[in-house]
């Protein structure tokens, strides 16, 4: 956990007071809706189809049990008893009343939570690996750097009115769980030839209507220069990013229009002027931030304790163990993923009761810590392996032990036309139907790792471009249609998916997914060739033939 100091707490409290004043001025008519809009957006408040939506940041995906209980309280007190975890380590409440927003944010501030910069044309919540600090393959804990960036870019006076929203993600592992290549700035920690850890800096990644993968503009940036280099990127973008057309305002368009090399030169020139100034990171400051991340008092344990071996006799437990439990950096411990993708339910939703129960379970079995990943699932990062059987029973009881993590029914989806005023088509019912079609776990396990991403419109909040199977809602003559891509991926081998063929109507989209799955089972060379590798080997055509032969 990152423990707030008095500076951090004071700032959040001051933000709550400011927002209360802004809401009061809006309610009194002193502020027009046009003037209020950017202010509410920078506090995470959207106006959706039916109501205001409040988006709360979960910085680098780390929550304490107390914080999760407060989210449950907000769901219960101000919303309709549930919250929705998003693809960017946020949680959204969909039914908040404007008059009650200041009280909700004040309640959240009591546990250090806030909606600052979760929306609007500013730097959004900085995301990272949900396994940060416990992943066996990481160089160091990336949250320290995410927190330094979070602080530096919170209420930054120069960068609060950017051309467009701005998203930063970091990874410090060989396997990228933070999808850094689809971010405005992606940072990958690695070691240079001298063994020193630093950052590969990628810019201009992003999805939406013009998808791009990030381009590397700095192969190795020393740690001391992280803030100054990011500042140079931001300053270049703030001055030269397009403001004439909202669809061309993201940094990816600037990088594309200038070319990555010229953009890199502009940044480099700016950076040279500031790199040795106030932003050069003093190791003492970094140490101070690092010291505020508390690690549990782990016990010295051995892998595979007898409790675990015994419990394996239960087939349901074994299936869950194989699917949802991952290696921890320490022996005797495990990382447990909690699936928020039960059959026939909206992906990423949790009820207040579930949140409270998960907070309790985390306190008992995970040192009071919970993680939120971009796949819209939760994780318990510090579970002693001997506790896994008891934990499983507790999770199963509250419906978050569906053993479908990373399988075809572990779908990422945006809220779609059920909530969002931008959407062309529904996402949630499509996801729900697919989970019903693949509710047979043996079938899902046989299909292996397969990510489906669904977006209800071209803005791509469901990241359809990087789904192994991507589904994009479009509108044709007033009807909901869906365009399908395959072969996308978000990890270290990031690729944008390729279009399979003409869009299909709502009633057929789940059939198409079944056809793709059936085609894959026939096309794969061996059972452990996962879907994405088969697509890479055989291309789109064999899938296209299968899907469109009968249509």
């Amino acid at each position: 956990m990152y423990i707030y100091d008095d500076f951090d707490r004071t700032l959040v409290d001051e933000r709550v007071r400011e927002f209360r004043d802004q809401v009061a001025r809006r309610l009194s008519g002193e502020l027009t809706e046009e003037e209020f809009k950017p202010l509410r957006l920078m506090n995470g408040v959207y106006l959706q189809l039916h109501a205001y939506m409040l988006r709360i940041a979960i910085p680098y995906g780390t929550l304490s049990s107390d914080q999760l209980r407060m989210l449950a309280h907000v769901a219960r007190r101000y919303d309709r008893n549930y919250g929705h975890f998003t693809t960017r380590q946020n949680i959204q409440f969909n039914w908040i009343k404007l008059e009650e927003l200041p009280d909700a944010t004040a309640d959240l501030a009591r546990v250090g939570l806030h909606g600052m910069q979760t929306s609007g044309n500013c730097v959004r919540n900085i995301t990272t690996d949900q396994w940060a600090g416990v992943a066996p393959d990481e160089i160091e804990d990336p949250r320290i750097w995410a927190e330094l960036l979070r602080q530096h870019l919170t209420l930054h006076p120069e960068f609060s009115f950017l051309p467009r929203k701005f998203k930063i993600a970091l990874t410090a592992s060989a396997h990228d769980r933070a999808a850094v290549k689809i971010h405005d700035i992606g940072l990958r920690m690695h070691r240079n030839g001298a063994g020193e850890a630093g950052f590969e800096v990628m810019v201009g990644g992003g999805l939406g209507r013009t998808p791009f993968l990030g381009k590397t503009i700095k192969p190795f940036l020393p740690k001391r220069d992280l803030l100054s280099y990011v500042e140079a990127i931001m300053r270049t973008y703030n001055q030269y990013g397009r403001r004439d057309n909202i669809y061309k305002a993201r940094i990816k368009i600037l990088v594309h229009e200038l070319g990555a090399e010229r953009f890199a030169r502009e940044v480099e020139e700016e950076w040279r002027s500031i790199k040795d100034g106030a932003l050069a990171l003093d190791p003492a400051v970094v140490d101070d931030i690092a010291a505020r991340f508390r690690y549990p008092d782990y016990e010295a344990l051995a892998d595979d304790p007898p409790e675990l071996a015994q419990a394996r006799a239960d087939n349901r437990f074994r299936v869950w163990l194989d699917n949802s439990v991952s290696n921890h950096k320490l022996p005797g411990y495990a990382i447990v993923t909690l699936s928020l993708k039960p059959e026939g339910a909206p992906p990423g939703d949790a009820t207040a009761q579930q949140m409270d129960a998960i907070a309790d379970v985390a306190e008992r079995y995970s040192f009071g810590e919970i993680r939120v990943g971009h796949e819209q699932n939760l994780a318990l990062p510090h579970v002693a392996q001997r506790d896994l059987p008891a934990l499983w029973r507790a999770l199963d009881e509250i419906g978050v032990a569906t053993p479908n993590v990373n399988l075809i029914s572990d779908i990422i989806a945006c809220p779609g036309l059920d909530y969002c005023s931008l959407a062309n088509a529904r996402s949630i019912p499509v996801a729900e139907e697919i989970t019903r079609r693949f509710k047979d776990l043996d079938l899902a396990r046989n299909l292996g790792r397969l990510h489906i991403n669904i977006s209800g419109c071209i803005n791509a909040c469901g990241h359809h471009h990087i789904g192994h199977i991507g589904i994009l809602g479009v509108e044709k003559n007033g009807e909901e249609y869906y365009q399908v891509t395959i072969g996308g991926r978000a990890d270290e081998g990031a690729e944008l998916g390729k279009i399979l063929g003409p869009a299909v109507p709502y009633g057929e989209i789940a059939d198409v997914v079944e056809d793709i799955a059936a085609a894959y089972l026939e096309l794969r060379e061996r059972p452990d060739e996962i879907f994405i590798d088969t697509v890479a080997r055989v291309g789109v055509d064999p899938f296209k033939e299968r899907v469109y032969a009968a249509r």
Partner: protein
Amino acid sequence: MRLVKAGRVIEDRFVRVLDDAPVPDGVAVVVPATRLIADARDLVLRQAPTGVIWPNDRKIAELAPYLDWIALVALVFPNFRDGRAYSQARLLRERHQFHGELRATGQVLRDQLLFLQRAGFDAFEVTKDADAAAFAEAVHRYSVFYQPTGDGRASTLTARRARGASPAVQSQREYVA
């Protein structure tokens, strides 16, 4: 519109002169960027102060050669969502060491004032009278600043270092939910 400087609403002593109008003697004037560059040789000889309105899509480096005799730079917010002039302001203050009046003009609303001040502005053509009246409140909403911007306010980056508080001491004051 009200001009606010040093926390008070004041009369504007600068007169705006357009591109082709004659520049009056003995009066402080503000001229457009194109006029400044075209007539710099004459303007530099004036006894009364000269200022410039610099558009937000023109590089601030082009203004650098004139800064030692310019009394005022007005930077423009065509609407309050267009934040280019924040970068221009910081460059003027922090890179080019401009010490004259730096004025925010265009759509300038209450909730921008602290950001503007932190970026280096010291004069504000505030669009609404009520916002001008609320100036003091608006720029004192926050007491904590995470990032150094050259405005003289201590940032947490340096404050934490100065205080040298050890995490052990800090932990006594952690929040309790």
